[in-house]
């Protein structure tokens, strides 16, 4: 009995110690690249990380996912170490990271997305809804719509912007109000992905979310017109007319562009550069496309002069900046 428990203790200790021993035994200079990314990038970035690790020996690419604003604040407020930040709304980077003390100096767009509504077979009027009548069905009484908090999450305010654009597009002044009536505060969460289980369990019928999420979670979605779904950078002028009134002020519509930047003062600058290059290159873009994101080739960037030389070659100046 004593021998057995002694053996167990020894086993437990060796299991606890082993990983450290193993990593010490590994060959020259292993490094870890830390990436903070928006929740909706979870699936494509994991694939990207695997590819990156394959191309670069002894490198671990570790990603953490969460709300874009939350991840930015972890760097700016909580001073956590990250090498790269990738957000769902490019404007998050200048808003939070450029402010003094600057945590970033530039950003580059690497993918597009579109706002859509996802639903299941259990959803009300699932058999009826299509790209033409969606705004009428979503306004019907008894329909429960979920969305994320416009005060804290990009997809939240982007949804509201899309609805205000839809008012102009369909020329129905009460459209936004009537649909939002079915998406009260109780149906709101701080990121839209929290509501996917609610959708699958039938608590809500429709969920305002990104098209990439629809594909990744194999959910049915509605193809909203490109003029309102914030997917097309060339429609930026029209998008500006869409407005969301939030606790952070009035936010005006802009194309949904995912952007990435390197965090100032990162110790892994060389590796971070390689990561961005991979993302902006053909392989990275293919991964984004396969996961339902719109490709962004060539990439647009802001403050190109601040970018590393190798990356400058891959980007063009952001139109209008």
């Amino acid at each position, binding site marked *: 009995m004593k021998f057995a428990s002694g053996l167990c203790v020894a086993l437990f200790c060796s299991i606890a110690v082993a990983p450290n021993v193993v990593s010490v035994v590994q060959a020259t200079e292993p490094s870890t690249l830390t990436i903070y990314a928006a929740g909706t990038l979870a699936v494509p970035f994991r694939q990207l990380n695997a590819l990156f690790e394959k191309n670069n020996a002894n490198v671990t690419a570790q990603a953490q996912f969460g*709300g874009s*604003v*939350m991840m930015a*604040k972890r760097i*700016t*407020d*909580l001073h956590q170490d990250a090498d790269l930040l990738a957000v769902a709304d490019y404007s998050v980077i200048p808003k939070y990271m450029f402010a003094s003390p600057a945590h970033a100096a530039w950003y580059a767009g690497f993918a597009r997305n579109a706002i859509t509504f996802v639903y299941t077979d*259990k959803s009300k009027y699932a058999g009826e809804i299509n790209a033409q009548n969606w705004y009428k069905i979503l306004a019907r009484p008894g329909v*429960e719509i979920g969305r994320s*908090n416009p*005060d*804290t*999450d990009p997809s939240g305010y982007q949804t509201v912007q899309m609805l205000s654009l839809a008012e102009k597009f369909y020329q129905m002044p009460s459209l936004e109000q009537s649909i939002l009536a079915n998406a*009260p*505060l*109780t*149906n*709101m*969460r*701080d990121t839209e992905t*929290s509501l996917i*289980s*609610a959708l699958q*369990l*039938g*608590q*809500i019928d429709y969920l305002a979310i990104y098209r990439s999420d629809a594909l990744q979670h194999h959910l049915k979605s509605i193809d909203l017109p490109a003029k309102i779904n914030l997917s097309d950078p060339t429609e930026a002028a029209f998008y500006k007319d869409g407005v969301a009134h939030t*606790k*952070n002020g009035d936010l005006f519509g802009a194309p949904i562009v995912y952007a990435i930047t390197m965090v100032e003062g990162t110790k892994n600058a060389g590796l971070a550069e390689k990561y961005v290059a991979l993302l902006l290159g053909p392989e990275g873009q293919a991964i984004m496309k396969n996961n339902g994101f719109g490709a962004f080739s060539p990439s647009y960037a802001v403050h190109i002069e601040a970018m590393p030389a190798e990356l400058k070659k891959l980007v063009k100046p952001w139109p209008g900046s």
Partner: protein
Amino acid sequence: MTDVTASRVAPIKGRWQARAAPSRPGTLYLLCWFCGSLLLAFLVIPLIALATHQSAQNLGEVAGIADVRDAIALSLEGAFLSAALAALAGVPLAYVLARTRFPGKGVTAALIDLPLAVPHTVAGIALLMVFGRQGVFGEPLQALVGLKFWGTLAGIVVAMLFVSAPYTVNAARIGFEAVDPRLEQIARTLGLGPWRTFLRITLPLAWHSIMTGVTLTYARSISEFGAVVILVYYPMTAPVKIYELFLRFGLEQAAAAALLLLIVSLGLFVLLRALAQRGVPASGSR
């Protein structure tokens, strides 16, 4: 039923003196104090850091935000209901576990501990499955009584109760097990029926343990985030509000709100402990 009164009433000074005499027990005592202080420091210093991070002005500002006050009040209300339900249903369960033997008792006891091991988000989803719009309880309850759990106080209470009820049951069970069954037998022979025996003898003697469990349930309920947020985001409980403040403003605001919550909670725990003590008899039996 040992004679504890004498030692409890003795002055602290006398206790120290009495124990310092033999040297071996003295070393043990010192070691315990040392280890205990380490743990105490580990628990208290982060809270002090949180407290001293703010200025009193910051704290005042945050206390002035109606949203924050409402969120704290909602948390307290939900936690109170959760603790009350845990007591009402959990204490009888604990009594059965303490007094009876039945097949599958071990499994039942393990099941009661299970919610503590379930990740909070998973717990929330499981509750949504059952109490949601199409849930096995949620659907009939909504149709028959109009009771909804999505985005309501009921949902908050359900999520809080799920993760914190085990504390009440376990503590109450220990309390009941410590009551000598012979005392209950004697009460019966004196003419007290099973109900009176429970209320006049068993419950008062187990009171302190029960209240400790209820306090833990209350505390755990206040702090619950992951399970609550699956069912209820609005209206916001304090943890949800603090998180939202962090997202919108930053560390300062969130920490100030957190500190406010802690101060209010501390006051309540002191009250609850006092309530627990009231039930302790003069003889010092626990």
